């Protein structure tokens, strides 16, 4: 071994890496399963959305047409209306078919992306999560394309001229890849930067990370959630739009 001692990379133990919290083995399988920070954060985010949704539903059932809605109901109405206009602006008359999925996606993404503010590791900073979302979009695009255009969906791959077929196929498969990498890259870069600031600049970390949190978690997270939903809508609408 050489005389130059390369210290193990300091950042490797930083707080932005995915950590295994609990290891277990299933009987009969020769593989160790890990419960890591992504699972816990995903569970917390899902349970939070579920609780808010259930409360909203219960309140909605009890509401009378005479009395004025309270604070909570106003906020829920604001969110639902905002999502409705967002989807309607792009999808037009197909809104009712997609508004449920896109609203769920948007709420999930926005809460996942700002989870860094609450001390969790954002679930979207794990490529497994974003790739699954990208694949859902991929199947949504092609399911709707085949349903709408039948055989024309596949002949469109040969469209301008037949030898562009391989490039068209690569273009179709690049959609989920670029969608998932965009979301992952943005959130991961924010997480890495915040982790480096908290770990490596520890003595100097006074108050100013708040500004960076506002940018990397709030601004970037909201923009990316919006962009992911927008691009999903654009791609799906591209396939189902009337000529």
């Amino acid at each position: 071994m050489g005389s130059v001692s390369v210290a193990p990379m300091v950042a490797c133990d930083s707080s932005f890496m995915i950590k295994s919290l609990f290891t277990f083995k299933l009987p009969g399988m020769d593989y160790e399963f890990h419960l890591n920070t992504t699972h816990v954060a995903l569970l917390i985010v899902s349970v939070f959305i579920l609780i808010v949704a259930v409360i909203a539903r219960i309140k909605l059932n009890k509401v009378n047409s005479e009395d004025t809605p309270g604070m909570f109901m106003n906020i829920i109405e604001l969110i639902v209306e905002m999502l409705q206009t967002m989807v309607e602006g792009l999808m037009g008359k197909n809104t009712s078919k997609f508004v449920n999925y896109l609203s769920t996606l948007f709420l999930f993404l926005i809460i996942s992306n700002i989870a860094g503010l609450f001390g969790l590791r954002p679930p979207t900073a794990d490529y497994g999560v974003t790739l699954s979302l990208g694949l859902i979009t991929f199947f949504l695009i092609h399911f709707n394309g085949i349903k709408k255009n039948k055989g024309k969906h596949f002949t469109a791959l040969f469209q301008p001229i037949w030898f562009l077929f391989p490039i068209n196929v690569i273009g179709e498969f690049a959609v989920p890849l670029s969608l998932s990498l965009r979301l992952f890259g943005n959130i991961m870069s924010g997480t890495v930067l915040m982790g480096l600031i908290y770990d490596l600049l520890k003595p100097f970390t006074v108050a100013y990370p708040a500004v960076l949190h506002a940018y990397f978690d709030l601004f970037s997270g909201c923009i990316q959630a919006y962009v992911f939903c927008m691009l999903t809508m654009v791609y799906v609408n591209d396939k189902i739009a009337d000529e």
Partner: protein
Amino acid sequence: MNISGQEFISAMSAIGAGIAMIAGVGPGIGQGIAAGHGASAVGRNPGAKSAITSTMLLGQAVAETTGLYGFAVAIILMFVKPFG
């Protein structure tokens, strides 16, 4: 001083990660151009501010993709260490 192969690979991975982040130049220029044109469009037609803003953000997010590919390569070189 002599450097072992393992250490050499670590050092070169770090340098490679730094070089990969040069990819950030392109999206920076592209997003700046998009934001500048967005600002001039709002100046010409302030009524269409929200439509211009959402179009601009969408275009910027798409332009950002190549930079994020560079970032993914850098992250893989630094933390996944495929070469050692």
